């Protein structure tokens, strides 16, 4: 148990994170900004560190008892059994229902936006010699928990040029659990079609165009070396979306091996 709260003025006591916040910090349930504030407080507060340690110890003991080491489950064996019981259709049928025509139309529109974005990007990446930038590619990176609503059900489709920054992105919810964007997955965010954001291109001519910037690398999470990158999507001088990622592969750009850490507007409620 943590030692009693140190005698301090009321205004100092009010600044300590409450039991809810501390527990949410331990379970990684705080939003990015709240987590950062809590981490900063913990660095300077031995009392709260002690409280956190007590919570962690409780969690450790409870988990250890509930985790039966003899209970290793082989999903492959279970999958084969399920195929026998439910038939091969289990591999073909989507998990979620197809939904209403309106939902389908909305999802179809989302997919169409991505396709159009890709086409426009390919046009926009025409090099000085007039040759189309055929190296631009779509990546579908799934799955993370970006909205705090459950583990691993959010995916991001990005349009990138190899070795260069992300040019466009779409965030979706992998509702049917197939690990990729498909017709019935709701689109949470899609950047508008963009033109290649060369620094030398005339900014005035594209004042209303969507600009996607990938800036790497800094140590945003104070977790060690500067390996965190930020992708921002802005239009008309206003930032529409921010994604924070860890540059795990050291490419200094957002790529498929990089875990996503946070996305604006999809933070846990």
């Amino acid at each position, binding site marked *: 148990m943590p030692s009693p709260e140190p005698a301090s003025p009321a205004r100092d006591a009010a600044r300590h994170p409450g039991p*809810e916040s501390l527990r*949410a910090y331990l379970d990684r349930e705080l939003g990015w900004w709240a987590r950062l504030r809590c981490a900063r407080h913990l660095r300077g507060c031995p009392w709260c560190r002690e409280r956190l340690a007590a919570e962690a110890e409780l969690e450790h003991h409870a988990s250890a008892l*509930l985790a039966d080491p*003899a209970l290793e489950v082989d999903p492959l064996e*279970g999958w084969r059994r399920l195929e026998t019981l439910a038939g091969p259709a289990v591999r073909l049928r*989507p998990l*979620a229902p197809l939904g209403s025509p309106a939902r389908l139309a909305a999802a179809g529109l989302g997919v169409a936006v991505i396709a159009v974005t890709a086409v426009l990007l390919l046009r926009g990446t025409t090099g000085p010699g007039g040759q189309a930038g055929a190296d631009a590619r779509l990546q579908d990176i799934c799955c993370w928990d970006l909205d705090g609503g459950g*583990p691993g059900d959010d995916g991001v489709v990005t349009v990138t040029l190899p070795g260069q920054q992300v040019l466009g992105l779409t965030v979706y919810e992998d509702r049917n*659990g197939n690990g990729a964007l498909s017709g019935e997955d709701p689109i949470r965010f899609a950047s508008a079609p963009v033109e290649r954001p060369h620094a030398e291109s005339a900014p005035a001519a594209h004042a209303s165009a969507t600009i996607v910037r990938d800036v790497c690398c800094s140590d945003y999470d104070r977790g060690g070396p500067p390996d965190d990158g930020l992708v921002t999507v802005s239009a008309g001088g206003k930032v529409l979306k921010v994604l924070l990622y860890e540059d795990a592969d050291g490419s200094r750009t957002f790529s498929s091996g990089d875990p996503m850490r946070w996305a604006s507007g999809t933070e846990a409620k």
Partner: protein
Amino acid sequence: MRAFFDLWYPRLVRYLCARVGDRDQAEDLAQEAFVRLVRHRPREPRSWLFTVAENLARDEARLARGRSRHLQVIGAERRDELDPGPEPDLVAREDAERVRRALAGLPERDRSLLLLHHAGFRYGEIAREVGVAPGSVGSLLTRAQRRFLETYLEIHEREHPEARRAVP
């Protein structure tokens, strides 16, 4: 579907095992829940899966109570004839049984909170499943874990009075 299965099937089996205390039965129930999932294709498969599995476990427990009464009669008749034999994993099984009894001794809400959290559910999902405000999940979880450890240690103490009590 395959990715979903690989991620959630082991967690569901462990969840059910803590509920029913028998691995084979837990796997059977998990399979049944997944078969129903494939047929129904619910909008929120994770919550749906665990809710169905929970109901299946509850039905099974009801049937088992009936069977148990019947088997007690047969068991009493045959006890003298049977040789129990060596039990190499007796300690581990006793411990698992204590955990199961400690869980069974908790209020329903605490048990669900503990097991859903252990299965990897996030606060939002736990709140929906258990019917509490998302903001209160953290403190309820702390309280449930404390009660669980205390109950477990009480059971352990009753069986091994020489053991000293040490609640973290």
